[in-house]
């Protein structure tokens, strides 16, 4: 057992370090980079960083060389991310496009399309979004209702998507729509990619509970999409969607703040019952529990890396990361505020401790437990795909979609 890289991995790590040291600012712990909405300046920074990274060969590490990738195994991607995590690089614009949309394109688009779209995406010149969720279809994605009807060489799309992260910043999107409501829900779906500037698309930002606006409602009114932009066969949209969602799984654990170390710092600086909070037995127990959970995830990731490094592919057991992290973040944020007492309410920059990091996390952390598979869906995945327990009973299973009961939304 060791934590050493193979010679090849070590060589790559050294290259990545050299690239980052020459091109990025090391990340201090002092002022964490918090994820909010992206303004025009932030978008520019993201794009120029992505271009630099792609030109140096650190984007699309697992992708074919013909698209500017390295054709390297997933372990190298993870190594790069580990190193990048030590630097304050601009993030938040390309994760969905490069992590989910383009890999789906690579599985289904034709050669000419790939020549057209992959490189600009890799260099950050074009941004992609994922148009899956709808008011009537989130966890139950296949219950979506946005329609597409054939019209000669085109399809005409009508309906609404929702929660589309970055739609307002995107050039292209991947979309799954219903092309046949007369068959059971999974059988009537078809998958396309489309130009977000197409006539008939209207994007309205959604005001999040955290105050930011990172995701959107996207309305489709007679939007024309050429049949050539269909990915997979008509009626095979569910299968294509699964390709996209599979890629969600390797999302490598980003470090969220406040973390348990922040909580230790906070507890040292606060006084509870006349003594430093860190001396309080109840506080110590909570810190120890979160520390053990944090370390448990870190070393679970190391076990995954070991498997990757032996050429295995990541499976459903990777659901553990988001499931544990999302609640931990929410709980640490909330507990930190408890320790502050009434002052925990205050978010003014000059008064709030740690730049209001705990308060901001309180308000943004609920999203982590919902986005990309809710806690409940992840528990289902672990129960069904890892432990082999039966799938949920589905009352809509063999019914034509247009006869499935729905709620008022």
């Amino acid at each position, binding site marked *: 057992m060791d934590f050493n890289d193979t010679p090849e991995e070590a060589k790559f790590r050294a290259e990545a370090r050299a690239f980052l040291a020459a091109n990025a600012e090391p990340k201090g712990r002092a002022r964490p980079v918090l994820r909010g909405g992206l303004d025009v300046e932030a978008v520019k920074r993201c794009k120029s960083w992505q271009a630099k990274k792609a030109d140096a060969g650190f984007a699309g590490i697992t992708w074919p060389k013909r698209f500017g990738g390295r054709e390297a195994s997933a372990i190298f991607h993870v190594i790069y991310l580990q190193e990048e995590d030590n630097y304050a690089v601009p993030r938040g614009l390309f994760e969905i496009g490069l992590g989910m949309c383009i890999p789906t394109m690579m599985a289904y688009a034709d050669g000419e399309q790939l020549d057209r779209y992959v490189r600009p995406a890799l260099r950050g010149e074009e941004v992609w979004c994922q148009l899956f969720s709808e008011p009537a279809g989130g966890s139950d994605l296949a219950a979506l209702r946005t329609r597409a009807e054939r019209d000669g060489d085109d399809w005409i799309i009508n309906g609404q998507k929702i929660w589309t992260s970055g739609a307002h910043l995107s050039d292209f999107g991947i979309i799954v729509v219903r092309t046949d409501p007369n068959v059971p829900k999974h059988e009537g779906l078809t998958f396309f990619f489309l130009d977000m500037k197409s006539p008939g698309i209207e994007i309205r930002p959604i005001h999040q509970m955290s105050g930011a606006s990172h995701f959107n409602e996207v309305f489709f009114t007679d939007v024309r999409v050429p049949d050539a932009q269909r990915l997979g066969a008509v009626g095979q949209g569910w299968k294509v969607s699964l390709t996209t969602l599979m890629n969600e799984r390797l999302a490598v654990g980003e470090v969220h703040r406040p973390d348990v170390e922040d909580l230790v710092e906070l507890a040292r600086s606060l006084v509870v019952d006349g003594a430093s909070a860190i001396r309080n037995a109840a506080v110590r*127990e909570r*810190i120890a529990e979160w520390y053990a959970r944090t*370390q*448990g995830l870190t070393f679970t990731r190391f076990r995954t890396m070991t*498997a990757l490094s032996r050429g295995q592919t990541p499976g459903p057991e990777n659901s553990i990361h988001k499931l544990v992290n999302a609640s931990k973040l929410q709980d640490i944020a909330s507990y930190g505020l408890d320790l502050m007492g009434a002052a925990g309410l205050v978010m003014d920059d000059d008064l709030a401790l740690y730049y209001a990091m705990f308060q901001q996390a309180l308000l943004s952390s609920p999203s982590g437990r919902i986005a990309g598979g809710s806690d409940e869906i992840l528990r289902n995945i*672990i*129960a069904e795909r890892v432990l082999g*327990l039966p799938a949920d*009973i589905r009352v809509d299973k063999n019914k034509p979609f247009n006869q499935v009961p729905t709620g008022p939304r």
Partner: protein
Amino acid sequence: MNFDFSDELKQLRDLARRFLAEHSSPSVVRSVLEGRDTYAADLWRAMAEMGWLGAAIPEQYGGAGLGYEGLCVLAEEIGRALAPVPFASSAYLASEAILLAGSETQKGRLLPMFADGSTIGCFALAEGSGNPHSGAVHARCVGGRLTGSKWPVTDGSIADLAVVVARDEAGEIALYVADLTASNVSRRSLSTVDPSRDHARIDFAGADVERLSGEAGWPMVLRLLERAAVLMAFEQVGGADASLEMARNYALERYAFGRPIGSFQAIKHKLADVYVATELARSNAFYGAWALSADAAELSLAAATARVSAIEAFHLASKENIQTHGGIGFTWDTDCHLYYRRSKQLALTLGSAPWWKDRLVQLLEMRNAG
């Protein structure tokens, strides 16, 4: 990155799993639980023959020299099978104490006896209620004679030798080897929440003992506890895994409301949570295994972390296994309670969760200060 056991050790694990499934079956565990045996002596002899008892003891002292990773692999399987043998007492605690604190002569004389199973060792620290604390050690050795009461001592009535934590004439903490069959030693078996493992009260009334002549003091006791905590974490992970498997199998086979209970989300999600806790504990135990075998500076914190996770995982897994079984899970004849009992036994020896959590934060504070 090679954060996994070697193929040879995985083979050892598979072999141990098969062997223990047969030789440490629930009926073997029950024969101790129900008082027909004090421990599984046949199993113990077989383990000695296979070299398990001396897995981490260097070959020069009669051990198998498999190293600590080898011992970890075995510990997981022993925990999975709830093996009713004094493995932890003899191999993680008594042998380790002699390795760490014994002189060359003491090692040469005592370790081969532990490695071949002819002598069973135990570790006597507690003197009644409370978690490990130097101030709670009152046993005292004056002129080579030990006086004091130790309880509970795991495997205390079946062991031949005990490594006893006591004060010397100067009042300093030291480790002593006591022959438990000698005069002026009296022992009484205790009834406990886990009768599948022996526990005793041992009274020393001026018993002849031998001081381990190497390093002494309370830090040595902590080092011992730490090393044992990593190994015990593997037992706990094995036990948690076995509890989860038992619950999962039952959830597939038991029907209610016309469907397997494993199709109800309340059961699915419960078992998913058990899986998560067990995997986190396993990962932390892996790190402990690495730190132990590399004798790394991170060992103290790694051990505390592994122990905190392992206690939580086995407790959760064993109690939810009973819950998943419903009424039958509460019966004597169903094996659920064997895991539930063992999870508490393992959680309470070596210091319980609140003590280790406090220690973990102490170590974090020290690390951050240093």
